[in-house]
């Protein structure tokens, strides 16, 4: 499912919504999450999962082609941890699933 399919789906489920509003809703949700992470905040959506920012220390990397050492600067990376409920849903109906 892509973002545009998600927008179409939302418009189907809520027929009174204008397509344009369905688009603004989906865009706003992801924009808010992005803005929060850019501020260094955490985004916690119970049952779905939590987005956070992790710091990667600077390190000496290597150019795999030439073998030359390059300094890789410290950077921040987004991280997502799946919520308990969603994790369980992914494994529902799987008889091999341990509890």
């Amino acid at each position, binding site marked *: *499912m*892509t*973002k545009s399919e*998600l927008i179409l*789906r*939302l418009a189907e*489920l*809520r027929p009174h*919504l204008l397509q344009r*509003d369905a688009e*603004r*809703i*989906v865009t*706003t*949700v*992801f*924009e*808010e*999450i*992005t803005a*929060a*992470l*850019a*501020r*260094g*905040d*955490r*985004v*916690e*959506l*119970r049952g*779905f*999962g939590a987005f956070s*920012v992790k*710091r990667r220390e*600077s390190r000496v990397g290597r150019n795999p082609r030439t073998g030359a050492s*390059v300094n890789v*600067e*410290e*950077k*921040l*990376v*987004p*991280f*997502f941890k*799946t919520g308990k409920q*969603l*994790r369980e*849903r*992914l*494994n*529902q109906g*799987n008889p*091999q*699933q*341990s509890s």
Partner: protein
Amino acid sequence: MTDNTVTRAQLSEAVYQEVGLSRNESADLVETVLNQIADALARGEMVKISSFGSFSVRQKGKRIGRNPKTGEEVPILPRRVLVFRPSHVLKGRINQVGDAQQPAPQQSEHA
């Protein structure tokens, strides 16, 4: 770096401000968006949100784990896990200048 937590309440508030529907309806729509994503993932579908990232479901095989406290071996059964891959746009936004911890931009490299 601030250390606040954003929840559904703030997402609903943003939708309310942005779209101009009622607060109740905004909250319901945020929930619907999350549910549609969760449903697709539960079906094993990949979810790609452009300029944000993609969520995919990966099958993990059986392996032998160990209880770190007792040293006892426990089998970890095959299961499905969710993997989030952030887009370059999202990574870029998070490392944008304005962050005090942002290192000086390095223009000499052609990455």
